């Protein structure tokens, strides 16, 4: 790998990792979302430093150029991160749904109490 490429890959991965850790330190990013990003950074760094590994992976996936392997891996990680977000959004959706329903039910109970009715609760 040309020195220029190597240099850039190392700079970018280091910047990414420092940035992620800083976000977690300042509580802007939760730990549970940081690991996939840190893993991405680590792998870019590893492949930039260890050219033989990159070449081995290139021949493994049948890509023509080591650069393609890097793009491919980058894409795979972005997909994984997007899926992680979809899963979390789904969980949040369920929570918001239950909160909204609970909110409606509670409001109804409060109105009843204010009107002087005693609601009977059965389980």
């Amino acid at each position, binding site marked *: 790998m040309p020195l220029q490429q190597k240099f850039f890959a190392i700079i970018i991965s280091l910047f990414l990792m420092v940035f992620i850790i800083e976000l977690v330190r300042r509580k802007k990013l939760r730990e549970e979302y940081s690991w996939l990003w840190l893993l991405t950074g680590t792998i870019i760094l590893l492949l930039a430093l260890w050219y033989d590994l990159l070449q081995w992976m290139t021949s493994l996936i049948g890509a023509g150029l080591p650069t393609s392997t890097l793009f491919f891996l980058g894409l795979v990680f972005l997909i994984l991160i997007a899926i992680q977000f979809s899963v979390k959004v789904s969980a949040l959706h*369920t929570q918001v*749904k239950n909160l*909204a*329903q609970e*909110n*409606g*039910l509670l*409001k*109804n109970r409060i109105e009843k109490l204010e009107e002087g009715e005693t*609601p*009977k*609760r*059965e389980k």
Partner: protein
Amino acid sequence: MNTSSKILTIIPALNEEKNIAQVIDGIKKNAPFCDILVIDDGSSDSTAVLAKTAGAKVIHLPFNMGYGIALQTGYKYALENGYHYMAQIDGDGQHDPQYIKELLEIVTSGEADITIGSRFSKNNRNHTYKAGWVKRTGIILFAYITSIIIKQKVSDPTSGYQAINRKVAKFYASESYPSDYPDADVIIMLHRSGFQIKELPVVMYQNRNRKSMHSGMKPFYYIFKMFLSIFLTLLRKSELLNQRN
């Protein structure tokens, strides 16, 4: 009908100020024995006020969450408040309330756990309902698939005109219930959980002024979602759903 049973009619409604009072009056006339609950799904008009004036209980959701979620809220309410049987009817006047009593009688007598009002049943001569061709194809297709899977004739799996007992309500209030788009998949889930399903011919009217949930690209999404949901329902172990006993 057993008069000691507590019965609730649930009406999910979104911006139905034109129809809601009429629907409530229709239910009061045809089924005076039941309480009426309107779930105001974040309406921006005066649906909630009109429903209250017409004599219904009203639950107000803080923002629009969709038909299935509004409905589920109603079932959570019914379970909390000890209702034995529940009916659900649309708030737009599409369902003729004169059938509520018949729908309920089948579940209160124990003949079935759930009754579904069908606009397409063979012996329903006067069906006035018309839908777009995509949706119609979807309904026919899923009616066919559902009928095969549950080994029982289902002609209108899309129908939101139902009566159920408490056991089914528990399922409807659980996270297994596909509250984003309940349809044919619910019938299959109910069947796999061992519930008795019955269909009753009813009259439905074309909804007059509603931006239907089955317009635009929605019918295509409906078909896709149903295929996916039915497929996944069949993949799940039925014990996961089994809450009958």
